[in-house]
């Protein structure tokens, strides 16, 4: 319980800190532009919208700086690996990198809206400043810059123009439009629906970030928002001279004020993260050139392809994933796959299900669809980047672990269970873990027959070693038809399960979590139990509730620690 509170509160504290920095930057900049003397005359024309535009610009700079960092995978892996500074709850925050990336994107959207609205108003005010109805100080300020020894304040020089064409004639305006369009296209193609239905569209459109950052760097080059120069401020006392604008040309006490634009600063904020991200991409190119040897290809039924590969200096932990690219299919696409082999094996493997364009083409290229057997030299070349992601090694740190997988979430547990088998065979170092409960819920086990095979081989080997008590697994099939019902009922009394061939029988329907957790809590009183889940959000919430419900209030009683994997 304490760990849960600590984990969640750390996330909340980090988000509040980020929000606090945003608020501080906004309010501080707003206040500065509202009070600063050098912008007094600018405020006469623009009013408060100047401060709104500039404050949101600073927040935009801050968030654009942050947005590339959570997706610098190698940087995150490096920080995770440097375990001196990152232990326990801090390391878990690194798993929430994508959530943070989205949060920063929302902040960019909000600040961009404020910025665009404020600048639309600013341009309108500048335009109105040149109208014949403008009077007094406003008119005088707008006229500045007409003669050769004056610098202008109002970037719009005549009323007989429209603000749209004024915008489109400046670098600032065009780059602003490019930034906004790139951002909107990225956001609309990143909705959950699009990501699930067409990952490629999401992936390709996201690369518009290149246009986004280039346009951002040149956006301030127009220097449209102008303030009074320091030399001019020292000779021209604003407090006195603002009421004597008619005498600026003539009087020596109030020389004509001079203005200059603020130099662009966005590039200073984003340079570091952009360089880091370029390094990430260079690392990926370097890894692309590293040789990957395919040592085994297994074609499982239901369109699942298993690939065993070897790569120099590759070391992984169970639960991690790799990015795979196949140049003969597409030079630009890298797809993520969870590793299904144990670290103790001398190869690494992935199981690829033919579910979309790229995966279907890959399976066909490896001869998975009943075609003629392929010679090793005919197999397409693959490039592998990684491994990335949170390791599931915490499974081995608890005396009792409960692993729950739903549907395709079973894949990371393949690596965990294989690793468990190797670890329990080694006498040194002794394993803290004494019991693993594995729950697998799926609609149709046919797509994961390879996993059922894995369980069967584990079952056999454990009984050979006399360690059958270590692993207790329960398979729940939630989709079944009438024919299956008859078949199952007929063979109910046999030793092995009729569907999977395993000694432990398959259950039909969803598990009753209350019973399961109650049973586990009863069997292991006073233990610290790790619960690991990979699957849909709804079930995650249920399991978190179960963990809270069945954890004892007594510190010496049983405690369930929930760990959700984010892939």
């Amino acid at each position: 319980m304490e760990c849960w509170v600590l984990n969640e509160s750390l996330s909340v504290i980090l988000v509040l800190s980020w929000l606090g920095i945003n608020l501080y930057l906004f309010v501080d900049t707003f206040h500065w532009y509202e009070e600063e003397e050098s912008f007094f005359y600018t405020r006469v024309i623009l009013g408060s919208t100047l401060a709104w535009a500039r404050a949101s610009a600073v927040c935009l700079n801050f968030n654009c700086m942050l947005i590339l960092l959570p997706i610098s995978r190698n940087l995150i892996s490096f920080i995770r690996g440097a375990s001196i500074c990152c232990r326990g709850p801090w390391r878990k925050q690194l798993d929430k990198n994508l959530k943070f990336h989205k949060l920063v994107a929302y902040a960019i959207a909000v600040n961009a809206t404020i910025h665009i609205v404020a600048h639309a108003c600013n341009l309108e005010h500048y335009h109105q400043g040149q109208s014949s109805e403008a009077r007094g100080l406003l008119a005088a300020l707008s006229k500045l810059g007409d003669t050769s020894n004056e610098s202008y304040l109002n970037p719009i020089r005549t009323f007989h123009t429209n603000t749209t064409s004024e915008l489109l004639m400046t670098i600032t305006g065009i780059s602003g439009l490019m930034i906004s369009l790139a951002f909107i296209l990225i956001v609309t193609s990143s909705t959950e629906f699009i990501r699930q239905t067409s990952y490629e569209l999401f992936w390709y459109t996201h690369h518009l970030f290149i246009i986004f950052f280039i346009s951002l760097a040149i956006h301030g080059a127009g220097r449209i928002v102008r303030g009074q120069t320091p030399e001019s401020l020292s000779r021209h006392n604003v407090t006195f001279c603002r009421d004597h604008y008619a005498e600026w040309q003539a009087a020596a006490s109030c020389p004509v004020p001079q203005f200059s634009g603020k130099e662009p600063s966005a590039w200073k904020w984003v340079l570091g993260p952009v360089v880091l991200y370029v390094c990430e991409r260079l690392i990926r190119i370097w890894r692309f050139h590293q040789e990957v040897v395919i040592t085994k290809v297994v074609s499982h039924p239901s369109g699942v392809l298993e690939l065993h590969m070897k790569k120099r200096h590759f070391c992984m932990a169970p639960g991690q994933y790799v990015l795979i690219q196949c140049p003969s299919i597409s030079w630009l696409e890298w797809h993520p796959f969870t590793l299904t082999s144990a670290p103790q094996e001398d190869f690494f493997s992935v199981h690829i299900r033919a579910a979309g364009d790229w995966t279907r083409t890959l399976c066909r290229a490896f001869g998975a669809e009943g075609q003629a057997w392929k010679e090793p030299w005919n197999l397409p070349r693959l490039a592998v980047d990684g491994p990335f992601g949170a390791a599931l090694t915490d499974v081995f740190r608890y005396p009792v672990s409960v692993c729950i997988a739903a549907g395709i979430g079973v894949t990371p547990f393949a690596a965990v269970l294989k690793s468990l088998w190797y670890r329990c065979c080694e006498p040194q170092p002794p394993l803290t873990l004494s019991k693993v409960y594995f729950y697998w819920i799926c609609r149709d086990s046919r797509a994961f027959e390879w996993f059922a095979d894995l369980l069967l081989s584990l079952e056999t080997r454990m009984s050979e070693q006399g360690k059958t008590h270590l692993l207790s697994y329960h398979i729940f099939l939630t989709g079944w038809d009438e024919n299956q019902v008859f078949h199952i009922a007929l063979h109910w009394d046999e030793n092995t399960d009729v569907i999977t061939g395993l000694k432990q029988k398959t259950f039909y329907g969803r598990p009753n979590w209350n019973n399961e957790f109650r049973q586990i809590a009863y069997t292991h009183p006073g233990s610290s139990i790790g619960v690991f889940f990979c699957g849909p959000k709804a079930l995650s919430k249920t399991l978190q509730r179960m963990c809270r419900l069945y954890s004892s209030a007594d510190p010496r009683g049983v405690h369930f620690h929930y760990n959700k994997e984010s892939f």
Partner: protein
Amino acid sequence: MGQIEWAMWANEQALASGLILITGGIVATAGQFTQWYFGAYSIVAGVFVCLLEYPRGKRRKGSTMERCGQKYMTKVVKLFGPLSRNYYVRAFLHLGLSVPAGFLLATILGTACLAIASGIYLLVSGVCGQPADAMTPQSLQPPAG
């Protein structure tokens, strides 16, 4: 990239454009900008586009996640007849709707976004070979149960 369901993206893009048009229109009208009547037009056009695009059309294959409260909007949208069914019609409608908003600075972003959405719908109906009348009346029905 042949299997990309462009229509889904066009729908998201058009919905976003509608919201941007409404925002720009409100700013221009409330601020009484020069030619603010284009702003008023933008608000109306934005609301219309949002209404039209809110119900998510059925995917060619696979399940479709409906948007919240979609079934009430679907009844209204079906009244528009071929407007709601045909991608060519939608593409040209969006292009036509976006042009007047381009005259005002506050709504020019909405114009650009809606024009892009129109381009994607055109791509869907013409280039990718998906049938122009992909959105049959049945596809706009909420699924039973």
